């Protein structure tokens, strides 16, 4: 069963760049890596998705090395409203299709 590992928490200050790394040693060949953001009392919300190398959208970048055993979510110039829990999601290499979320990284952005 694939397992993902993320830091439990991170602290940052407004205006800084934040990088959150997820380890996923047994990622399946065809699986994508997806990151979600969750605020209290809400369901997770999609941030970004990629398969390999680098992907960038209007809110974040995602870096995936060639071996795909990890991924790094990069949030440029965070603000107080980026305080949330961030989850990475990858597929499972087991015989049946399963979705494995990391346990989440709680990001606190300070003024």
């Amino acid at each position, binding site marked *: 069963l694939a397992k993902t590992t993320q830091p439990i928490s991170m602290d940052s200050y407004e205006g800084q760049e934040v990088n959150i790394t997820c380890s996923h040693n047994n990622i*399946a060949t065809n699986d994508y890596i*997806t990151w979600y953001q969750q605020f209290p*009392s809400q*369901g997770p919300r*999609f941030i970004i*998705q990629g398969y390999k190398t680098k992907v960038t959208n209007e809110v974040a970048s995602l870096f995936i090395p060639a071996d795909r055993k990890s991924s790094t979510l990069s949030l440029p110039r965070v603000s107080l409203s980026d305080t949330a829990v961030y*989850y990475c999601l990858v597929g499972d290499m087991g015989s049946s299709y*399963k*979705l494995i*979320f990391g346990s989440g990284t709680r990001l606190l952005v300070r003024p």
Partner: protein
Amino acid sequence: DVKVTQSSRYLVKRTGEKVFLECVQDMDHENMFWYRQDPGLGLRLIYFSYDVKMKEKGDIPEGYSVSREKKERFSLILESASTNQTSMYLCASSLSLAGRGGEQFFGPGTRLTVL
């Protein structure tokens, strides 16, 4: 905007009761999912469905069943609720299988307490 709605935000039930959690999506998505979320454990997949009347077990299906009679509706059933099923339950839908390029859209969650 994709909307995923769940029938209740908060629910309190007693041990042994049969519990139904309903989820409806309005974007004609093929795939629907039920997760539970517990502190320190993140989201764990209970069941997912890739078509009407089709279902697949996720990581933790024990004690749960599901029903998908219509494309837009996916129900999670606790046949006999137990206290260890006290949790936040999240429903999601996607156009393609989530780990293979599809974005999941989540509902707001149902916080279930079993006494």
